[in-house]
């Protein structure tokens, strides 16, 4: 969940959608200002600091991408999450080249929007005290502490490394290479089955301690942590 009083700016011309999304984000603990034109957004961004910008691409007085280009041109590093009804090949390439940090195609789950914003705010330079949670397993990224049912757990350094990486990428596959790099750095010589051993141990630890999560092996690719099904 977001830190209280994090201010977000949403530029979305559909009033109904804007209101609903703002309500959802407020429930998640954010403060949200809603604007509907490029012009308003340009002037407001000059004077007010926002933690992130949620930008719709199709705006009545211009393309959201032009606003984005303008921001990046003035070296404004604000994280920008683009919302679009277009999801085509060219739109995607355009959006990312114009300096968007992330991209959501309508319709999307409110949960997904919140997750993406949190991911942006956790970026280096936006480090927040935030804990990651799946079912009854929680991982606090600030002190690297895992807890199950709010009971702090003691795990080995390697197991903690692996768990942190998996929790940070919750809902996504972490490649075996990423795990290797995370644990051993880029140069280290890695025994071929070392990662398997650590994941196996972590899986065993989590199961023994009653965590309702599962560490899936995606053969040939990597690992994914998810709620127990």
């Amino acid at each position, binding site marked *: 969940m977001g830190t209280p009083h994090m201010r977000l700016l949403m530029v979305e011309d*559909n009033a*109904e*959608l804007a209101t*609903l*999304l703002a*309500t*959802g984000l407020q*429930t998640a603990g954010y403060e949200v200002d809603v604007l509907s034109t490029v012009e308003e957004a340009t002037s407001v961004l000059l004077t007010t600091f926002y933690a992130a910008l949620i930008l719709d691409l199709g705006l009545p007085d211009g393309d959201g991408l032009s606003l984005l280009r303008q921001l990046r041109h003035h070296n404004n590093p604000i994280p920008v999450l683009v919302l679009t*009804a*277009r*999801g*085509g*090949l060219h739109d*995607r390439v355009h959006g990312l080249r114009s300096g968007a940090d992330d991209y959501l*195609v*309508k*319709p*999307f*789950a*409110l*949960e997904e929007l919140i997750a993406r914003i949190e991911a942006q705010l956790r970026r280096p330079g936006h480090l927040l005290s935030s804990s990651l949670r799946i079912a009854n397993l929680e991982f606090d990224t600030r002190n690297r502490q895992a807890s199950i049912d709010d009971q702090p757990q003691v795990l080995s350094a390697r197991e903690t490394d692996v768990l942190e990486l998996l929790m940070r990428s919750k*809902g*996504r*596959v972490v*490649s075996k290479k990423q795990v290797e790099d995370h644990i051993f750095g880029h140069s280290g010589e890695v025994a071929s089955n070392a990662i398997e051993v650590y994941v196996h141990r972590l899986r065993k630890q989590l199961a023994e301690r009653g965590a309702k999560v599962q560490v*899936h092996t*995606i*053969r*040939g*690719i*990597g690992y*994914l942590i*998810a709620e127990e*099904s």
Partner: protein
Amino acid sequence: MFRFKSIISRIVILHVFAVAITSVFMSLALSWLLSYATNNIHNEAMQEQAITVGEHLTADSDGQLRLDLPRDLLGLYSQAYGRYSYAVVDQGGRVLFSSLKNQAALFPSDTRTHNVEFLEQRLGDATVSGASVKKTVGNEAVWIQTGEDLTNRDVLIDDIVADFYRNVGWITLPILLVLLIADIAIFRRALRPLRQASEIASDIGPTRTDVRLPTREIPREVQPLVSAMNLALDRLEEGFRIQRDFTADAAHELRTPLSILRTRLDLLEDRKIGQALQKDVEGMAHIISQLLDIAELDSFVVNPLEKTDLRSVTVEIAEFVAPLALAQGKNVALLGTTEPVWVTGNSEMLGRAIRNLSENAINHTAPGTTIEFVVDKNGSVSVLDHGPGVTEEERNLIFQRFWRRDRNMPGSTGLGLSIVQRIAELHSAAITVENRKPTGACFSLRFTPLALT
């Protein structure tokens, strides 16, 4: 009525008729010309003979006319030879001299006639043809008649006429046939730009509406047709564009209200109802995405210089679909080569093809099973499942838009495999479907691998 199937056959058939008619007329004309020429020769010879006879006609001092023919001429006109004859007639119509036995004139005398006249006359059972030449000898005008018996005509000339068809006349037919063959070759050559235009036209389809027929090499007579065709293509292209834009615009327009619906559901107090309805919204959003993919594919052209690492695209897609598979109690695995596999193609499009294949596989594979991605260094990627497989009859149907085996199957729009096929087509990739033992399907896409450099 008989209709010709091609211009060439029309030309050939009509040409054969023309050649047949021409050869008949040409023979007739030649034989007429020949007889005209032989007649001329005959007439000139007769006139010359009359003049020669006339040279030997002299007048005495008392005005009496005398004819002293030299010996060779006498022989020529002798009764024994019987071929040539002469007569000299005076103004009163009296016959002064004649080579004939009965001292008769060869032709009826007509004093009003001109200096030279060519005549023909039946004498007994012979036909005499010859000339009558007027000459003034002393102070008297006489007409010298010379004739040839046509039944005893000059053998040489007769032979030429008689042998004309046998020796010369037949040559017209082969000459005309050679002309016919030459004409066919000429016409074929002349029609070549049309054939080339046809080949270009055969490439035109919904994805290649930008192609136009060349007008530069096309003969002027056919230009209006080609230009009209190109204008028709302009209009068609515009029509296709409007339709594509409509599909894309309609799909885009649906996304915002769907977003509103989705967010409203997310904010519902009752999570249970919300979750069920969210699934419906996701299904609709999926159809819209696929419609957009199709609209985009209809105008997409693969850049032949673009290259893609098939393996990294497959890894990306496998990572993308893994959470979806796990959520359904299924898993994914990546097998095959671990080296990059470079192929010609657009990475986004290849990704969409593999994604649709894997979504299809996840939908059909049995719960608890794993779908497998296999990338081969020969430029192919396969997606294997543990579902019911694809029967022989279904193999063509499955790639049709909106075809579904089970209309109640959740998550299936009937568009996915048609998108896969379209992308394969655009990349000249081969798509194959095989069944696995004991059960399951294996879909493979084989792209053009780039030469290893």
